[in-house]
């Protein structure tokens, strides 16, 4: 059981953690200073080391260098003793499992440093085999340039070995490249080792600089994880070498691994600066849920497609107000946007629909166009509109609509001349919708609550789980009230999610909608449920998800702080922030 490592913050697969040595250490970090190797069993028999609270003792091990045949690994597999001090086990993707260690060193990793796809596979495989709340250690791999990618993949500990060795070889490492030290005519760094003239800068200085640069980059990475913005950073940083880009894309293809760990909402804005953004789990998940889980409730009205606005939520933007003034709420509105895809009006608050910032380029790329074409087609296949009014500008949007039009049955009508907010366009829009009936506010608001429930709890949840309810409050601060007058839950304007009351939680449990349940031991949680108290947790739970907590002594609702698998696995740290609890 892990006693010395705890995860404090997550950003996708990346984590900020704490190694509780006699002097506590924040991870991810350079570990060689506090890792003590009890030695290899290849070279000698070893006694169980005495250990020490001030270091992580790597228990006697057999490292399997890359290329070691699986059968050899199997027959030389080591079983690790139970010890009561901070300890590490050496594993390979083939031998990785729960050895009760705090730290798992992945053997053979230096060979991965140039092979992004192998790296991604091995890290994912290992990470999934070892306990969630243990630290994954890659030795001899980290450089200032690659370390952000390592951490993004799920590595918690690295060391300075490679940086130092490269330094002794006269290679000057930076976050964006490497230089032959004999080739430098100045020192492009502000670290203490570089506060000397380039002439007197020797290889020892170079090794020290490399370590400084590595440490600084790790500090930056920790910060980015804390901010929930590591991915944004990596979309830029990863460009500096093929490895980084390869890791980014390789992990995007490990969608399950990444999506499971990606929070349902973030406080920070998501910066859409590269086309890799389209492949982020947040974006893919939204597109998937907004199409597959969406149930059309506002029927017998046309669909009105409009361009997104820079101001969020869209409905508060000036342009969208103008559209609605002209449309007189006679159509179901959906916004088209890169990189989110299609946002039906009910989901305009839901993360990341109002949480992204995009680099305005004035032009759509082919990738963006085909992504939105795909999402819009899927959306239209799932819904039935009598007509589609495409109130969209020429550039990009029009092409998307025309491509989609060719694939679906419903007819498209175009209402924009010159610019969507041009007087003529707005008149066209008004005229085109003349004769259509108006959508009542209450109808729209009810649809919003149900759509959010579908998105959050699963297809059909909006009806099955919420059932009949009355509306209270003023958009976006809407509440769902059961016929008996009890509140079921409220829409959280900041994230466009439902927050449940106890009554809501109970209705969820009673409904056909699969409940995201965290089973706990016989106690009544106050404020939060900690991981050791969790007996089991639904695998579908994502960080930030609304969950029901059930135990012999308590029933509660709250927000998951990590994914289900991690909750069940972990022996330390928070699992659920409890909102309401009652004793049983």
């Amino acid at each position, binding site marked *: 059981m892990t006693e010395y490592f705890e995860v404090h913050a997550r950003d996708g697969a990346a984590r900020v953690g704490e190694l509780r040595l006699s002097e506590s250490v924040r991870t991810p970090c350079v570990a*060689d200073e506090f890792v003590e*190797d009890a030695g*290899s*069993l*290849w*070279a*000698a*028999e*070893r*006694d*169980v080391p005495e250990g020490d609270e001030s270091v992580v003792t*790597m228990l*006697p*091990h*057999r*490292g*399997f*260098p*890359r*290329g*070691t*045949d699986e*059968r*050899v690994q*199997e*027959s*030389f*597999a*080591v*079983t*690790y*003793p139970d010890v009561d001090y901070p300890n590490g086990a*050496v594993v390979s993707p083939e031998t990785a499992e729960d050895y009760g260690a705090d730290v798992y*060193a*992945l*053997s*053979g*990793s*230096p*060979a*991965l440093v140039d092979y992004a796809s192998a790296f991604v596979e091995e890290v994912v495989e290992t990470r999934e085999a070892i306990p969630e709340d243990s630290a994954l250690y890659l*030795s*001899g*791999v980290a450089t200032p340039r690659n370390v952000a990618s390592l951490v993004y993949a799920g590595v918690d500990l690295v*060391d300075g*070995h*490679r940086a*130092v*060795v490269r330094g*002794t*070889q*006269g290679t000057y490492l930076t976050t964006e490249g490497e230089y032959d030290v004999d080739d430098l005519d100045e020192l492009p760094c502000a670290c203490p080792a570089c506060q000397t003239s380039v002439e007197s800068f020797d*290889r*020892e200085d170079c*090794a020290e600089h490399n370590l400084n640069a590595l440490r600084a980059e790790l500090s930056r990475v920790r910060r980015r994880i804390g901010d929930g913005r590591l991915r944004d950073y990596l979309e830029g940083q990863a460009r500096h070498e093929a490895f980084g880009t390869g890791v980014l894309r390789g992990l995007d293809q490990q969608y399950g691994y990444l999506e499971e760990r990606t929070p349902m909402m973030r406080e920070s804005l998501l910066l859409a600066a590269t086309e890799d953004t389209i492949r982020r789990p947040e974006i893919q998940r939204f597109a998937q849920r907004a199409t597959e889980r969406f149930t059309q409730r506002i029927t017998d009205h046309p669909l009105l497609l409009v361009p997104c606005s820079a101001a969020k939520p869209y409905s508060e933007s000036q342009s969208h107000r103008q559209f609605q003034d002209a449309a007189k709420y006679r159509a179901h509105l959906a916004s088209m946007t890169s990189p989110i895809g299609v946002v039906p009006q009910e989901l305009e608050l839901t993360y990341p629909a109002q949480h992204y910032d995009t680099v305005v380029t004035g032009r759509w790329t082919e990738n963006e166009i085909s992504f939105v074409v795909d999402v819009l087609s899927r959306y239209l296949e799932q819904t039935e509109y009598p007509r589609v009014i495409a109130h969209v500008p020429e550039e990009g949007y029009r092409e998307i609509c025309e491509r989609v039009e060719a694939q679906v049955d419903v007819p498209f009508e175009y209402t924009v001349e010159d610019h969507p907010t041009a007087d003529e366009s707005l008149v066209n829009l008004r005229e085109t919708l003349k004769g259509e009936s108006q959508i009542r506010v209450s109808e729209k608001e009810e649809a919003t609550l149900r759509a959010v429930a579908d998105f959050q709890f699963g297809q059909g949840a909006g009806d099955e789980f919420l059932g009949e309810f009355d509306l209270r409050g003023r958009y976006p601060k809407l509440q769902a009230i059961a016929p008996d007058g009890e509140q079921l839950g409220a829409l959280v304007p900041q994230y466009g999610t439902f927050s449940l009351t106890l009554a809501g939680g109970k209705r969820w449990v009673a409904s056909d909608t699969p409940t995201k349940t965290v089973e706990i031991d016989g106690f009544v949680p106050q404020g939060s449920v900690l991981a050791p108290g969790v007996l089991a947790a639904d695998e579908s739970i994502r960080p930030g998800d609304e969950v029901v907590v059930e135990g012999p002594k308590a029933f509660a609702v709250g927000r998951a702080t990590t994914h289900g698998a991690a909750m069940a696995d972990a022996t330390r740290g928070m699992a659920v922030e409890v909102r309401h609890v009652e004793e049983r």
Partner: protein
Amino acid sequence: MSQPSPEVYEEGRGMDAHNQVMRELRAEKGSKQYDPEEPTRVWIDEDNTPDGVVQSLTIILNTGGCRWARAGGCTMCGYVAESVEGGSVGVDALMSQIDSCLEHEAEEADEESPLVKIYTSGSFLDEREVEAEARRRIAETFADRKRIVVESLPDFVQADRVSDFVDVGLETDVAVGLETATDRVRHDCVNKYFDFADFEAAAAEAESVGAGIKAYLLMKPPFLAESEAIEDMKASVRRCADVDGCHTVSMNPTNVQRYTMVDDLHFRGGYRPPWLWSVAEVLEDTADVDCIVVSDPVGHGSDRGPHNCGECDDKVQLAIKDFDKRQDPSVFSEVTCECEHTWDAVVERETTYNLPLAE
């Protein structure tokens, strides 16, 4: 602590796995037909012997190949297929090989070599490889030379077999591929199945008839970090030197041979041959032992052979060769290179879970 090792040995699981993998690798190689009338290789060189540095004739006899290797065998050894297909080579064929070697010597050297060394990629003293008659005829053939070295596994070092050479007046040495004095490393990393005790017994047996022993050590088998390899060699040299009858140790760094486990590891980034600095370090450190210690790095300076940074490989190799002849450790203080810092860092930092730390 639950030590897996005893089980491994009891069940022979480690050996089985190694053998299984090696057999597959060797199967990939396929086999060439070798002419049983021709030796595998033959060359003229100079060697440091207890009698000083002398000209040597080295013969690799083609005897049908190493039985152990056919079963799987040593993780670093790629010589197995360099032998006749099918098994054994008859006495006449072996003598033809010897004739061929003598012709080579006559062509290449001005005089007969005082020292003759015969290797077989197996055991010359194993009568399944070299029949007793052939052994005796070979002893006679070289009776006028000063010294002979024949290669054998310890099992086959029997007084009567060794006597065949002693009896014709040859200073006789049996060369044993001990690889390391550490049984654990020999078993788990090299996959060679005899113990140091067997070596000691063989030395005693040879000495009993007046022959000597020459130990062959292997620097850096797979699965060892650089520092472990160095320590293993330092200890091995000292333990060999302490064995009566063992007057010479030839410590040779691993090179990466095709169709071996080492090659497989190397290809996938899991093996780097030792640094030449490591070889020098061991030689320098053990220079005080009462024994000739030599080393002949093969393929030095290349990616598949022992190497430093590429700048200094030739210099260091030269120093090693010089040491081989003069046994003077001061030769090593005369070569330096910036890459010593890298080597220092590797020795300090490399473990079996992060190797190789540097190319």
